[in-house]
């Protein structure tokens, strides 16, 4: 007999019995939400480290370890579901997406740590951030990770669309900032070291945004069974 868990709808009094398989899927979903939240914290900390003060490295390391462990746990759950349950249709897409999403989240976590580390090595950081308007961009990167978690949770087309729009804006801002930094470095050699660090850091932020966009694409695949990872998002009806 399948093990079952009872869910009761408080308004309709309808009792729904979850099958063992559904419990496994729910478990997987909860781990994804958890790892997503941890990545959100890491990104938020990295933005804090960039825009205000250096942050406690111990806590960041601890969160990074948690993300790595959950990433492995997700792989194990997916492997077990594939082997024992042979999922099809929406279940299959859900599990395929889970594997990809956890991979993307793990990379977001790593990039956030890199941002934190590099933030420490930028001289006159606050002046440069103000000069090249990086503050707004960093806040948008923080926002896109929140929106990405929301889009996984709600599976809502509007949330997916918002992630795509934010990514375009981040990319544009980052490119403009990098161009300005390069111009500055050409004329003032004393900013070359800080400028280079800042360019690398901006590239990390851009990558975080791209990983968020990839996650939104997997959510789209999960919901609509359509692979859009190489499509132009502007052409999508979102």
């Amino acid at each position, binding site marked *: 007999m399948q093990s079952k868990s009872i869910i009761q709808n408080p308004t309709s009094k309808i009792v729904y019995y979850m*099958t063992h398989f559904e419990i496994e899927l729910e478990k997987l979903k909860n781990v994804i939400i958890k790892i997503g939240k941890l990545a959100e914290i890491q990104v938020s900390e990295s933005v804090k480290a960039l825009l205000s003060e250096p942050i406690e490295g111990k806590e960041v390391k601890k969160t990074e370890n948690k993300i790595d462990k959950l990433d492995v746990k997700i792989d194990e759950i997916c492997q077990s579901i594939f082997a024992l349950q*042979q*999922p099809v*249709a929406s*279940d*299959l*897409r859900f599990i395929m997406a889970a594997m990809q999403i956890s991979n993307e989240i793990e990379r977001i976590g790593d990039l956030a740590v890199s941002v934190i580390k590099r933030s420490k090595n930028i001289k006159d950081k606050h002046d440069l951030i103000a000069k090249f308007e990086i503050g707004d961009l960093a806040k948008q990167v923080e926002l896109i990770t929140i929106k990405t978690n929301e889009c996984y949770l709600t599976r809502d087309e509007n949330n997916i669309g918002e992630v795509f729009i934010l990514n375009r804006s981040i990319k544009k801002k980052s490119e403009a900032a990098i161009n300005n930094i390069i111009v500055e470095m050409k004329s003032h050699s004393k900013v070359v070291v800080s400028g280079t660090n800042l360019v690398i850091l901006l590239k990390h932020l851009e990558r975080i945004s791209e990983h968020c966009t990839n996650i939104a694409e997997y959510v789209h695949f999960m919901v609509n*069974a359509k692979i859009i990872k190489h499509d132009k998002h502007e052409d999508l009806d979102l």
Partner: protein
Amino acid sequence: MKNIKIEVKDLSLYYGEKKALKEISLEIPRNKVTALIGPSGCGKSTFLRCINRMNDLIPDVKITGQMLVEGIDIYDKNVDVVNIRKKIGMVFQKSNPFPKSIYENVAYGPKINGIKTKNELDEIVETSLRQAAIWDEVKDRLGDSAMGLSGGQQQRLCIARTLAVSPDIILMDEPASALDPISTSKIEELVHELKEQYTIIIVTHNMQQAARTSDYTAFFYLGELIEIGKTNAIFTKPEQKQTEDYITGRFG
């Protein structure tokens, strides 16, 4: 779908007052495997049995609509039912060899069809047993009783017996449901090979078997055809919610 072998138009079947199949319309392509899936009592086996008029043997059955095989309505009163069953072989859930030798089981059909010479019969027996992937296991004991074979071997012998009369279409009603995984895998592999020459329609309760063996899948529910499409599409992105619920095990 191109190259249609069977075309079904508005086919309904009644067991007395009860309507067991409701206006089924579908096309079955030539040299492909089409799986029929659905919960017990949904009409998939009843539908399968309509294809070689097996339901004629049940009293109080009434059939309306058309079952066109190669463009000919097999329910037309001028059609010879024996001829139809010659062209449309059937394999059942439970293997049912005759209580005769392995050789006689396969040679039985061709003999009835008038083939008398030993050389010709030998050739048919060997070819059929080879096609059914059992030749190597029985070639040295063709005179032994078929009843001494294992369940999986008996089922493949029944397939060889079906092939011996050169059918165009093979109907399979849960052919591997009573077999162990090794025999099941042999039958599935066989189905895959046989489609080169035959049009195969298979009823199965095993969703993975339908996914593994068929090119097209039709989902039946309460006597209705809910959806038919390429197996890959049915198992990755079914169009109907009922199909999705059934294949993901959330039915009812």
